């Protein structure tokens, strides 16, 4: 008996073979998995996979889907080494299999063919590539990094974003010297009505600033949030995100993508 009838939303647990694993110039890692049917279940960019990271790590690690191909049964992840789990992941060999649960969560809601302003910061950048490639509309990207050395995926964003790629770095070593929200304000100011919405992923202070700019220009804004996670499927309730109604939503099931106006930014 299955209560969850809709095939396109099915969550699978599969052993997925690593087809490619290389370190990017910025130090982060790009991994392509033979998805064993998971790619076909991806409903939207911004969803994530939950990966077992070796016998020493009890919990899985959630990693955003960077891009996918249902036809070729591939899923690409881009991740940074933050602790023991992701360090283990970066040491896998091509041909090894990983225990993968997914696709999980609610991704970015995109109207087919519409133009979006994609705003990414640091390791929040990769899922926006999926938005640019799979969204079907002419997107523009605003990407922020600590410095030029951390910049990633610029060429691919260049190819996927007809509206161009604008860059910001905290130290001014590449593009605008400062944060992405200034560039977001410029874009919305100079192209009123062009964007169906702003899709953002990155550190919470960045998201808060972007959400505030969007509210000022009355542009729809969706943000992808992070929180320490347990089960990944909505059962254990640990990945709580404070919401404006005074309660909590859960990043793994209600998110990771939320309408910016539902998030309690002051909590």
């Amino acid at each position, binding site marked *: 008996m299955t209560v969850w009838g809709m095939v396109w939303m099915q969550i699978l*647990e599969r052993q997925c073979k690593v087809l490619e694993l290389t370190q990017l110039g910025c130090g982060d890692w790009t991994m392509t998995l033979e998805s064993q049917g998971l790619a076909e279940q991806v409903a939207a960019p911004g969803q994530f996979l939950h990966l077992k990271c070796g016998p020493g790590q009890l919990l899985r690690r959630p990693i955003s889907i960077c891009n996918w191909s249902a036809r070729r049964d591939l899923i690409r992840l881009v991740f940074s080494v933050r602790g023991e789990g992701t360090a283990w992941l970066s040491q896998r060999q091509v041909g090894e299999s990983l225990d993968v649960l997914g696709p999980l969560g609610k991704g970015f809601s995109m109207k087919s063919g519409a133009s979006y302003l994609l705003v990414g910061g640091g390791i929040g950048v990769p899922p926006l590539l999926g938005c640019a490639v799979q969204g079907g509309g002419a997107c523009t990207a605003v990407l922020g990094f600590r410095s030029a050395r951390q910049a990633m995926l610029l060429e691919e964003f260049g190819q996927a974003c007809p509206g161009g790629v604008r860059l910001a770095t905290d130290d001014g070593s590449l593009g605008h010297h400062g944060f992405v929200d200034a560039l977001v304000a410029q874009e919305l100011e100079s192209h009123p009505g062009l964007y169906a919405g702003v899709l953002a992923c990155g550190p919470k202070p960045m998201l808060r600033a972007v959400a505030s700019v969007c509210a000022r220009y009355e542009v729809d804004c969706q943000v992808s949030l992070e929180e320490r996670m347990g089960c990944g499927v909505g059962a*254990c309730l640990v990945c709580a995100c404070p919401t404006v109604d005074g309660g909590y939503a859960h990043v793994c099931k209600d998110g990771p993508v939320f309408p910016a106006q539902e998030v309690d930014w002051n909590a």
Partner: protein
Amino acid sequence: MHEPSMAVKLAGVELKNPVVAASGTFGFGREYSQFYDLSELGAICVKGLTAAPRKGNPPPRIAETPMGILNSVGLQNPGIDAFLAQELPFLRRYDVKVIANLSGDTPEEYGQMCEKLSQAGVDLIELNISCPNVKAGGLAYGTRPDLAAEVTRVAKAHAGATPVMVKLSPNVTDVVAIAQAVADAGADALSLINTLLGMRIDVASRRPILRRNTGGLSGPAVLPVAVRMVWEVSRVGLPILGMGGVSDGDSAAQLMLAGASAVAVGTACLADPYAPLQVRDGLRDIAARQGLSSVAQLTGAIQPW
């Protein structure tokens, strides 16, 4: 090799196998029903219920530790009325026993909730008496024999024919004294162990990982503590639902040998939705290898030195 019978009894309730989904790690079953038929489980112990809805603690609510996790969810739940209206009917679509875990602020509140749950026909009630927000403060209900007994008496008086199981905290000096007190007060079964209080600090920021500083430790790290406590408490003579670090057939069999009639799988579900089924299959293999006609023969069959 013959197939051993997997059916067990817990406080008079027949379970088709000894594996129970532990409270707090399995929600109300909906999420895991995407992966397999919930009727495969012996029982589901639902997310801890309170009289009114509770929004829970601020994040972070989880921290990973060596072979374990710390959690500080804070009893987030939709409240007992929403459970009865929306979640229990869903669970009743499956051939699985339903255990309702509840926490109250006062003995009277435990009593009122027991009445509602009994009338709704849940199969078993589990009293959580190590709630961090109770009248007497801290873990008082679970750490003082007299208070634990009082809650048990009031719950029993309101639970009708529904058996009442009391979930014991390991954060005590003498778990047998608490177990004996609730047994004398009329408890039908015991479940243990609840989580062990713990803490993890991020050295760089000097901040605890959990927003509430401390939390409950669970996972394989606590298994030896659970086995020891189940063994100690078994002398009280009540049926026991054993839990704490069960992740496979071996860990489940240890708890049963120590005295448990059934076992609950909790933290292992977080990493693997199929963990309860793997524990069930592992137990069946062990019973078969040992030539048992029934897995229930493991209960209390320890040969201590």
